């Protein structure tokens, strides 16, 4: 019964979404207060209904109700409880329901926290958000209903794909969706502002926290996915430039650009129409991402690629929302007049440069992703675009971004003098080049990648330190400086922390790529071998049984000289229900290096194939992402955003007597 209740709640949510779209938009254009006010309760009720539907589906998975075709296709009674719960979104229908839940969650949050917005703007934001909900809920109900029943339920399910049976599934998709869908808020704000024909500093202040939240969730989601792939794939790659990855990376890049340009709108009332365009495009790339992942148009073999009808529907959603928003933009954007005046060398210009670099790099990723499709459709050339292209075409923009970052973050608003900006930075530049030289001397031979990465990364991080140092005031006592630093706004700390994270990730990527050591060999049980200064012993290989799989375990002892470093136990698993093998690498995590071992197949001549990797600074890549996200959190907790509330209240009593 509970399941049916969830199904009804899902349909009711669609009805409420229609109400949430029509009433507030109509009310705002006619000036009907009560209709405008209906948006809030409709959004909250819609979220309630979807939460109930999600609860019902989860209940179906937890109790292994195989009369639900989704549960029968993706679950099994032997599956551990964690994966019964996470299995809810480990498939197309369930993940789409999660998408809708989050969409409604954002709308409900906007309804709750947006009480300080102009009533007409708030109504329009909720209305646009409601329209997105209508599109996705009807997609869910009409093409991918998660509550479809089977007339003859099977005795047991066909189990969740073994690769998804990992704690990564618990966190990676929800974070990613919080990010993707969070960008819909920026989109709704942009479209609402276009309808209103009014973009001002207050708009910039309202849209920034939503973008910031979406961006930081996306950062965490992408980092988690990358880390998951790193330990799960069995060779320790962290980024593949795969279309589905690019689908998450493009919105991230655009969201990062949007974050920065919204600052200019908020502080200087310039770049308005560009910021609006970015807000539209950011969500546009989210939609394109959803289309790429779920239509299978770019990927012939894919977990979700099963139904062209779904692809067409998603393409229609993308087309309608992007087409509509861009048309509105073309008509209305010229009305957004910039106010701020600034010189060629100024913080504003630096942020424009940041935006150009981020937007162009996102475009490069986009064209690389769709090129194979385009080339085949238009010129009948069947070709591939892979990592070597992206490495060559994308990297220069990130290098330029890192090179400009310290300069830009030290520039004052309005007008900067280059010699004054550079004055405190010369030391940082010299130190960074010294760091690079040091790295170059230490490494024996090898590419210039690591020294180059060291220069860039320390330039970025040292730029942050110089920035903080100058903010602390010139020629003061140390304790006074500290006091002053502690009083800096949280947003400034957020900026410093996030930029530091960028530097750390940059270094991690360069160091890992340049210095990784790989060893592939056949080892007999009891045999020892040396890899990059470590002695590795394949002590034992034995069989074992898990709850729903059979495994081969290898016990490998790692030592450095006489000192034992770790005992690692890599596994090979076989899941009988899904008839699928997986490899589980064993990793000794460290700050300076990971030791990564994988056990392969038994060899004909006896012994086992064994792969060992020494991965220097691997964890810096994800640590940098987490630091970036922390910076986002700090910035989000800034007083300004909380009190923005107060500041945004309508100026008192400007109304002439009636």
């Amino acid at each position, binding site marked *: 019964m509970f399941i049916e209740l969830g199904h009804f709640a899902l349909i009711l949510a669609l009805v409420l979404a229609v109400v949430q779209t029509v009433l507030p938009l109509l009310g705002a254009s006619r000036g009907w207060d009560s209709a405008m006010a209906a948006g809030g309760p409709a959004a909250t009720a819609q979220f309630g209904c979807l939460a109930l539907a999600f609860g019902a589906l989860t209940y179906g998975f937890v109790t292994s109700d195989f009369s639900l075709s989704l549960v029968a296709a993706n679950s099994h009674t032997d599956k551990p409880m964690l994966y019964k719960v996470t299995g809810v979104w480990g498939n197309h229908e369930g993940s789409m329901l999660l998408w809708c839940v989050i969409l409604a969650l954002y709308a409900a949050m906007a309804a709750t926290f947006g009480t300080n917005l102009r009533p007409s703007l708030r109504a329009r934001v909720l209305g646009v958000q409601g329209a997105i909900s209508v599109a996705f809920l009807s997609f869910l109900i009409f093409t991918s209903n998660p509550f479809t029943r089977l007339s003859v339920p099977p005795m047991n399910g066909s189990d969740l794909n073994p*690769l998804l049976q990992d704690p990564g599934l618990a966190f990676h998709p929800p974070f*990613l969706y919080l990010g993707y869908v969070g960008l819909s808020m920026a989109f709704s704000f942009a479209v609402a502002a276009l309808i209103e024909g009014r973009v001002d500093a207050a708009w910039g202040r309202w849209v920034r926290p939503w973008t910031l939240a979406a961006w930081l969730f996306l950062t965490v989601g992408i980092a988690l996915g990358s880390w998951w792939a790193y330990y799960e794939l069995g060779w320790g790659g962290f980024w*593949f430039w795969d279309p589905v990855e690019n689908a998450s990376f493009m919105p991230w890049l655009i969201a990062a650009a949007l974050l920065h340009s919204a600052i200019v709108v908020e502080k200087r009332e310039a770049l308005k129409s560009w910021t609006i365009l970015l807000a539209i495009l950011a969500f546009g790339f989210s939609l394109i991402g959803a289309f790429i992942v779920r239509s299978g148009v770019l990927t012939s073999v894919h977990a979700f690629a099963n139904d062209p009808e779904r692809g067409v529907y998603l393409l229609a959603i993308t087309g309608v929302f992007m087409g509509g928003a861009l048309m509105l933009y073309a008509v209305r954007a010229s009305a957004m007049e910039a106010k701020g*005046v600034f010189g060629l060398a100024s913080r504003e210009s630096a942020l424009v440069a940041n935006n150009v670099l981020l937007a162009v790099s996102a475009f490069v990723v986009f064209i690389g992703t769709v090129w194979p499709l385009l080339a085949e459709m238009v010129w009948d050339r069947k070709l591939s675009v892979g990592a070597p292209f992206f490495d060559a075409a994308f990297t220069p923009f990130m290098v330029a971004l890192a090179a400009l970052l310290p300069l830009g973050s030290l520039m004052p608003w309005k007008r900067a003098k280059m010699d004054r900006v550079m004055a405190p930075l010369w030391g940082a530049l010299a130190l960074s080049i010294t760091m690079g030289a040091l790295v170059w001397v230490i490494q024996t031979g090898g590419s210039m990648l690591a020294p180059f990465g060291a220069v860039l990364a320390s330039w970025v991080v040292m730029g942050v330190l110089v920035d903080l140092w100058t903010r602390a005031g010139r020629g003061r006592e140390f304790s006074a400086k500290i006091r002053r630093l502690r009083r800096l706004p949280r947003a400034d700390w957020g900026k410093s922390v996030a930029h530091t994270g960028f530097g750390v990730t940059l270094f991690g990527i360069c160091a890992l790529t340049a210095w990784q050591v790989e060893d*592939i060999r056949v080892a007999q049980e009891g045999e020892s071998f040396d890899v990059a200064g470590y002695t590795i012993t394949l002590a034992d290989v034995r069989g074992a049984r898990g709850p729903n799989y059979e495994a081969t375990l290898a016990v490998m002892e790692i030592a450095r000289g006489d000192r034992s470093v770790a005992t690692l136990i890599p596994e090979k698993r076989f899941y009988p229900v899904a008839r699928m093998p997986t490899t589980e690498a064993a990793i000794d995590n460290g700050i300076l290096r990971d030791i990564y071992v994988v056990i392969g197949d038994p060899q004909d001549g006896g012994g086992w194939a064994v792969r060992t990797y020494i991965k220097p600074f691997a964890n810096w890549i994800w640590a940098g992402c987490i630091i970036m996200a922390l910076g986002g959190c700090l910035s989000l907790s800034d007083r300004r955003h909380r009190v923005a509330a107060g500041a945004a209240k309508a100026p008192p009593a400007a109304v002439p007597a009636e």
Partner: protein
Amino acid sequence: MIRVAVLVWLLAMPAFAVQPDEILQNPALEARARELSKNLRCLVCRNENIDESNADLARDLRLAVRERLVAGDDDAEVIDYLVTRYGEYVLLRPNARGVNLVLWLAGPIMALGGGLIALTYLRRRKGADVRPDPLSDAERARLEELTGD
């Protein structure tokens, strides 16, 4: 969900990437083989190079690359050998011929164009009109009220 696809395909295959028995005795040749492999696509996989792929076809291609290298081919000849057999689909780094020039030049051209547009915009802002908006009637009324006229 994003990674899942990659994972699903990669691990669907029983064996794994470069096998110990494939590695050439000559370390210089082996290093070249690895470099070349990174730019060649496993034709039955999704966007994966033959160096990382577990598919049987990838193994065949890895062996073919090594065979050609041992036979004394230079890097370009090995690539040509594979392209004539499998088409340009096998190249993960698309060549810069014909319409592919658009792909390769898109980034630089966009950067140049974007930079120029931004520069024009910035120069215009520099000389922009500094006058603030005139006061609205309501604001003027409020001002008068405050200044007590």
